[in-house]
């Protein structure tokens, strides 16, 4: 039963600390997404990779956030330095893009981040 995995599931840290979240997409998927979900904003796209290349990170605060895919089995989202307003649930999702046929996404369980 293939699924997206994320670590850690929960993270509590203090303001100013670096936070790294990891995601293992489903094997064979060629698209990876990072989202942030809050009660106020809902689900917001932070970054999008296709075939490991970053194609869209316009939703990501560039001064403190960075997203990478060092290989096909690992995507990372880093926040440095973290701030209390970064507290949210961060989801990774992967999918298999097939021309213009549409692309359902498979979400991981999320990382709940709390910045004190």
């Amino acid at each position, binding site marked *: 039963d293939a699924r997206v995995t994320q670590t850690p599931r929960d993270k509590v840290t203090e303001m100013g600390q670096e936070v790294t979240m990891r995601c293992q997409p489903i094997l064979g998927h060629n698209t990876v997404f990072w989202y942030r979900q809050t009660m106020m904003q809902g689900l917001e796209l932070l970054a999008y990779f*296709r075939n490991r290349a970053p194609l869209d990170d316009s939703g990501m605060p560039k001064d403190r956030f960075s997203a990478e895919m060092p290989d096909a089995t690992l995507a990372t989202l880093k926040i440095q330095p973290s701030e209390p307003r970064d507290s949210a649930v961060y989801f990774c*999702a992967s999918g298999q893009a097939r021309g*213009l046929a549409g692309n359902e996404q498979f979400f991981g369980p999320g990382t709940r981040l709390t910045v004190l």
Partner: protein
Amino acid sequence: SQKIEQNSEALNIQEGKTATLTCNYTNYSPAYLQWYRQDPGRGPVFLLLIRENEKEKRKERLKVTFDTTLKQSLFHITASQPADSATYLCALTGPGGSYIPTFGRGTSLIVHP
């Protein structure tokens, strides 16, 4: 700017009835629209995808309609069950081969036994 609207108020219905959820959008020409289910503490789970040239799509007790003139999608769950209680999100993806969806805020459905 692009806007996706889902009813922020929870929808309460009785078991056995049909639940109907609405997704409206403005300033958008989506190539396709998806519906996801999200349970508390979990990631969204894909349910159905409908393309701009399709009017209706069905899967078991689920039915989705897509009216590009009204700029609206309706999501129906027939013979609803308490296990259907969750938040339902719609997501729109634009034309041109972009696979980047924009999600609505979701509507909470509560099915009472």
